[in-house]
């Protein structure tokens, strides 16, 4: 058994050491894999805030991932074609600057999360799962028929966007950006979980009635959690688009919503590093099992069923000897 914080430190160490080693040995593909893992982890950390702390089983977080992705895609597309983006009342220039893209991605994802959250939180349980799924599908089908930005085929961006002072085309530098963002978000997440808001949100999940009788509004608490959660996943979407230099409607697909949920349960629901460990394991399995057999999803499926049935609390729960992160 390992204490959870040592396990977390070990994960962080691995996320620093492996890419550095890969750089030294010039295994660039490993760095790309690590970047992918870190970005997917970030998306899942976002979802975990709504799911683990707020108890909101959102089956539509691909919505925010896709919005982040398309924010990058649309802004960079206008920059690379030197066309202005016509918004009716005014036009704006595209941009190739990552910080601006991130900011816009965060703002747009938050706005959409406010609307989806306000509507979805009228329901609960299975209905909440399904209505969030439906919103994701809405965006999925919308982008498929959105011919201006590639429709079903998606949109390619030829050069990775820039970050002041760094060369983002060097894999390890782009990895560094993603890793620092992940660490920053994890730090904020840890603070948030212990904050007054975190305490109240935790209570709103476990005992909404009690939360009301002390004068707090569980729905509003959950809405704020949902919005923060959507913003983080949206930021991850923007990074993911930059990693691939490509966006397509599959970023909105319900399978992706399922996958990020899967990272969380794989790692451990409500654990700070659960989603990180889940995403790392997923990407590793995808890579190595994928090399051995074309049918690696079978093994992934079986492993998942076993984890759900017999290892509640996920890998973190298993290794730290404290199962059952949620009830």
């Amino acid at each position, binding site marked *: 058994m390992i204490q959870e914080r040592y396990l977390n430190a070990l994960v962080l160490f691995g996320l620093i050491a492996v890419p550095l080693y890969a750089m030294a040995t010039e295994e660039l593909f490993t760095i790309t894999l690590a970047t992918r893992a870190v970005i997917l982890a970030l998306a899942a950390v976002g979802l975990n805030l709504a799911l683990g702390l707020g108890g909101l089983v959102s089956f539509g977080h691909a919505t925010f991932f896709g919005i982040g992705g398309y924010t990058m895609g649309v802004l960079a597309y206008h920059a690379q074609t030197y066309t202005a983006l016509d918004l009716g009342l005014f036009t704006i220039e595209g941009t190739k600057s990552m910080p601006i893209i991130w900011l816009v991605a965060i703002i747009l994802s938050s706005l959409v999360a406010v609307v989806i959250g306000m*509507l979805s939180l009228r329901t609960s349980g299975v209905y909440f799962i399904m209505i969030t799924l439906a919103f994701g599908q809405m965006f999925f089908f919308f982008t498929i028929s959105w011919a201006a930005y590639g429709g079903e085929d998606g949109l390619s961006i030829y050069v990775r966007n820039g970050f002041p002072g760094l060369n983002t085309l060097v894999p390890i530098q782009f990895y560094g950006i993603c890793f620092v963002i992940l660490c920053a978000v994890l730090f904020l997440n840890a603070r948030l979980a212990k904050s007054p808001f975190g305490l109240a949100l935790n209570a709103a999940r476990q005992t909404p009635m009690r939360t009301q009788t002390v004068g707090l509004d569980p729905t509003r608490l959950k809405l704020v959690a949902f919005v923060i959660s959507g913003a983080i996943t949206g930021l991850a979407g923007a990074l993911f688009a930059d990693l691939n230099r490509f966006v397509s409607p599959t970023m909105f697909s319900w399978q992706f919503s*399922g996958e990020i*949920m899967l990272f969380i349960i794989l790692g451990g629901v409500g654990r700070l590093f659960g989603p990180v460990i889940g995403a790392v394991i997923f990407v590793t399995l995808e890579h190595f099992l994928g090399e051995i057999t074309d*049918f690696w*999803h079978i093994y992934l499926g079986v492993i998942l069923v076993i984890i759900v049935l017999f290892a509640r609390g996920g890998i973190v729960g298993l290794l730290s000897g404290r199962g059952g992160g949620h009830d």
Partner: protein
Amino acid sequence: MSTVLIIEQVLNGLQFGVMLFLMAAGLTLIFGVMGLINLAHGSFYMIGAFVAAAVAAATGSFLLALIAALIAAAAAGAIVEMVVIRRLYATDHLDQVLATFALILVFSEGTRWIFGSFPLFLDIPGYLSGPVTLPGGIQYPLYRLTLIGAGLAVGLGLWALIERTRVGIQIRAGENDREMIAALGVDISKLYTLVFALGAALAGLSGALVGAIQSVQVGMGEPVLILAFVVIVIGGIGSIKGAFVGALLVGLTDTLGGIFLPQLFKLFMEQSAATNAGSAVASMSIYILMSIVLIWKPTGLFGARP
């Protein structure tokens, strides 16, 4: 736009809706009785289609193919229920979503492993192919008409089963009070396996029937599954009546929206923009429908209050 076209599209919508109902009925029954949300339901649809295609290819008999599809889907359902699903009844929805999501991976890749990645084809039998002339001189494919009829007949049979038989009484009791039904001396785990297998069989039948007008391929179950979820959420989860109404609503909205929304948009937009915008909104229309229903009635049209 001619009346003939409208009637044709309405029939297409009905056909789509009725097939969705076969999927949705099983889903909603399983949720109503066992409280289980089953994402792997689309896999039974796929299994039904694949088995039907394989058996039809081997024997040349469409009827045998249908029967084989029913049996195979029911058997797969029963086995999955006994091995995995019954351990999920007591867990929360999150665990159910994930475990059944994982089952999709197993089923889809397993099917790909056995049958390969290329689509199979299931032919409409000779005696059901070709058009028929409906009153008013409308030509409509006989097979699609048969689907509507078959779907309605199965729906009626399901209603009779639930309302008029002993098993039906047990199922309804199970929806209301699990302890009472155990007290009545019903073997609850057998009942659950039975309900699950029944739902799987309906999905398999639906997959086999639709397999004759679409290609049979891995992943065919998931789009239908999502639509079936939309159906039961609109209808109210647990309600067979709701599933029926919801299925027809979704079938008609999806089919008619694709035809009429672009026309509608042409009234105030130029041609190509209207076609684009119209088809964009049409592809989103059932999800918009679902959101409106849920915002208006958070537990669906016929759902019990939580």
